[in-house]
């Protein structure tokens, strides 16, 4: 078990290097530069050159790469072109809100997904199964920004139940303790639901089909002949083996969750990594875009590592260190 974790962690290092290099190659291959985005046509050639020199854009590509890689290895992600602050500080500020939002969405995704799947699998092709699988399909098919826009219109504007944006209300800067937490959760509801419901639909669909597969296995039939209650069979004997692929799904759904956070954070002005990525992208703030992209990839790698370790912990068959 420990060996597995250590080996996977060691494998992570060359992966991160490759990820970073790929991001650099893409950026270096792009036309234009930061100076192009400052929309003042009066900008003279000298001023432009001055800007490029200030940000090291005038050096040959391999120099830029080495310089950048060196500082990356030292934990220095550079300085934002736009806000002039160290990128690492920017990330330190924006990662926690994203983890909060993503965590809440993931929780919703799995709890709701499992409940729906179990309810649907209880009577396959029954009315609940049909309705929920149809709704699940619909949710998975609708663009998340469309759903979010509708949610804001209905729940923030018409009903006024939840705030339409941001992570805290203005007055909350003075709030602390339970009141502050309540304010935060109040703001979390809409974005987390918009992000999590789509995932829940997918999880439910996936888990339902594995549940159906497991139901056909011999030992379930055996359990049934032994006279165990349907409920017990479903919750203990069927669900547990079916959960294994769900944990794999957890690793796999992380990239979608991270991607989805860009859209949801933009719609809700949620102060996370996704919003930062988008505004940096619009301003061509290259150090920030690169850092966030790499961070996203690292998060995904860590997620799949976590999923592997978890499934190894649950399933004795994979626990032994087979190659």
């Amino acid at each position, binding site marked *: 078990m420990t060996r597995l974790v250590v080996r996977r962690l060691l494998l992570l290092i060359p992966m991160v290097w490759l990820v970073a290099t790929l991001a650099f190659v893409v950026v270096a291959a792009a036309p234009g530069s930061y100076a192009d985005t400052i929309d003042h046509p009066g900008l003279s050639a000298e001023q432009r050159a001055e800007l490029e020199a200030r940000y090291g854009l005038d050096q040959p590509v391999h120099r830029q790469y080495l310089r950048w890689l060196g500082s990356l290895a030292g934990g220095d992600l550079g300085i934002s072109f736009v806000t002039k602050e160290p990128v690492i500080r920017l990330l330190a500020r924006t990662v926690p809100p994203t983890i909060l939002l993503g965590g809440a969405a993931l929780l919703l995704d799995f709890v709701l997904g499992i409940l729906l799947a179990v309810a649907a699998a209880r009577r396959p092709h029954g009315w609940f199964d049909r309705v929920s699988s149809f709704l699940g399909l619909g949710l998975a098919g609708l663009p998340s*920004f469309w759903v979010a826009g509708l949610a804001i219109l209905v729940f923030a504007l018409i009903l006024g139940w939840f705030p339409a944006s941001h992570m805290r209300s203005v007055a909350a800067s003075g709030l602390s303790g339970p009141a502050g937490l309540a304010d935060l959760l109040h703001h979390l509801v809409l974005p987390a639901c918009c992000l999590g419901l789509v995932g829940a639909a997918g999880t439910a669909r996936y888990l339902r089909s594995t549940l159906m597969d497991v139901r056909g296995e011999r030992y379930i039939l055996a359990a049934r002949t032994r006279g165990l209650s349907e409920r017990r069979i479903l919750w203990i004997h069927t669900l547990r083996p079916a959960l294994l692929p769900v944990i794999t799904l957890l690793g796999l759904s992380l990239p979608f969750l991270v991607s989805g956070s860009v859209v949801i954070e933009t719609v809700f002005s949620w102060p996370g990594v996704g919003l930062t990525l988008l505004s940096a992208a619009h301003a061509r703030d290259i150090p920030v875009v690169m850092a966030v992209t790499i961070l996203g990839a690292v998060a995904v790698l860590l997620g799949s590592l976590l999923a592997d370790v978890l499934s190894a912990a649950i399933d004795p068959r994979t626990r032994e260190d087979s190659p």
Partner: protein
Amino acid sequence: MRPSRGLHAGLAGLGLLVLLCVFGPVVLPAPPAADPARAALLPPGAAVTEVILTDGRGLVSPDVTVGNEAIVVRGPFRDTELSPAEVVSVRKGRFLLGSDRMGRDVASQLMAGGRFSLAIAGLAAIIALLVGSSVGIAAATGGPVTDSALMRLVDVLMAFPLLFLLILVATLFRPGPVALALILGMTSWMGLARLVRGQVLALRGRTFILAAQAAGASKTFVARRHLLPNLAGPLSQDTALRLGDLVLAEAALSYLGIGVSPGMPTWGGMVAQGHRVMVEGWWLATFPGLAIAALVISLALIGDGIQERLTRGARS
């Protein structure tokens, strides 16, 4: 919903959408002309009267009075009084799905946008299919060094959250529609490469392939005769699901303001534009949103249906 029925429903849905987008403009009655001054933001089903003038212009308004002396076309800002001599014809029309801010028929826009969305996603899927299967086959047959190099590349690319990678590339390159399809295709072939590699490796050990090779069949023959039919199922299932993802990805990029130019309305772009006036004209964002959903759902049903057939086929 039973799987085979699901497959049929999916195919029917996809077929209907494609047919509507491609042949809709030919089959359906011509929509009223665009008249931004008098027929902007009319709700779905709005009945209008179209007045064609001698100089070829069409005035469209829900409120037109046709008299013997004069024809009055009313608008929110100005009324226009015309003498019968100026008018060639008067006909009734209807905006089935409403009109947009420029008085254009949303239904026609939706069909045009669908053609763009489908073309972009389709082209991207073809690119992904080509790149993915080439890489997969190369990895499976090219020896251990090629294999591990290619598979590491796949691992690295798969580690990037798709939208992050798309945003990075799209902001840097500001793509047109073809370039966007290329970018979408080039960032979504990795799953396919794994799939193809796995299938090829699995098939390689199977007896019928070994037998064919022993009988002296050429590589291309084996590939065409045995590999392709066995790959067709998984590939088409994967492609169906991928197409849905691509449509959604294109929509998200358009929404975030880094998709194709607004002069070229895709469904995603239409939702994004409609969002601005969600209160004034709910139909602008709603119908393209539903169209995307219908397309993605159809594709998901097809994907599931194929999956079901494959497993059933494997069992029997």
